């Protein structure tokens, strides 16, 4: 009689242990699934963040290019673009007969479009496309515009404008 009781008790205890193990396994699986989903969304987020950072990189490079920077007594001026240097570089990059310059700058600017716009004084406003490598089938574009001075060394005037950088990307994930 007591043996049967003991074996029943043992069965119940075994059942309890199995139930606990099953619950723990279910909890671990739920945790793994949740963690995995969270990680996937983090990777997508990191991808879009790195795209934003690459546009920022380009926006930081452009006004510091010595090819277009203003110089005064051989000293570079901060946040200033020389109008004639800009025109010359734009012509070299956008030269359809010789793509060497374009290929050189492609290493820095990748798939983006860079436009220099003068907005003030309004009577002399203009747009110059410095670089254009638009992705045909892009799914996402990021735009940054930074204020800059544009100096005309012939008229000796300084005007106000923007560097507009538009980066093109395929959306991550």
């Amino acid at each position: 009689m007591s043996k049967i009781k003991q074996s029943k008790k043992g069965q119940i205890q075994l059942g309890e242990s199995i139930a606990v193990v099953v619950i723990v396994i279910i909890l671990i699986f739920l945790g793994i699934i949740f963690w995995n989903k969270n990680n996937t969304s983090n990777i997508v987020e990191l991808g879009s963040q790195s795209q934003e950072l690459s546009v920022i990189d380009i926006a930081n490079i452009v006004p510091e290019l010595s090819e277009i920077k203003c110089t005064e007594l051989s000293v570079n001026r901060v946040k200033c673009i020389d109008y004639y240097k800009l025109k010359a570089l734009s012509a070299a990059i956008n030269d359809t007969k010789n793509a060497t310059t374009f290929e050189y700058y492609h290493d820095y600017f990748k798939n983006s479009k860079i436009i220099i716009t003068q907005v003030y004084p309004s009577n002399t406003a203009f747009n110059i496309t410095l670089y254009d490598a638009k992705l045909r089938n892009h799914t996402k574009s990021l735009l940054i515009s930074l204020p800059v001075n544009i100096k005309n060394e012939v008229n000796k005037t300084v005007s106000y404008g923007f560097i507009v950088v538009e980066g093109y990307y395929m959306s991550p994930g």
Partner: protein
Amino acid sequence: MKNTKTNTRKVRGQIETFGLAFIVILISIGFFIFVSFKSQEPKPTPQKDFTTDKVASDFILAISDVNVENCTEYDVEDLIIDCATRNNRITCGTDNSCVAVNKSIYSMLNSTFIKQNIAFRFYSENIIYNDGAGDKELLNFTNRNCTDKSAQGKSGTRIISLYPLQNNVYLTLNICYK
């Protein structure tokens, strides 16, 4: 004697099960608290941060060297100094230096921030101007109700010396997060 032994075993077994269940519940609650805190963390927005932080300082740096429309021999800084020292020697067309600098800075603010719907507050200190209704600070522009109490990004400030006078003029641009 046997009964008491089995009873104590039963109680011990129950306590063990409850203990295990309690630990599992504690771990689950801890996990959910961790996840909810993590999801509440603000996500980094490099592009927005860069724009709000960099544009303010770059704008302030850029505007003071710009030659003013209708009097290209002077830049914004010349006009500010002329207005702040109350010399009023410079005129741009029909406008005196104070009116001309007000117009030119508003034009640049308009093309940079107002057209892009960016909330900002631009103001000057130590440029007192009498517009007929009394003395007031010359430059004070705001967009989208951006005040000193709004949540703000980094600001850009430019100091213009009025030497030989002891005063300095301060131009400040705050960009608000809206």
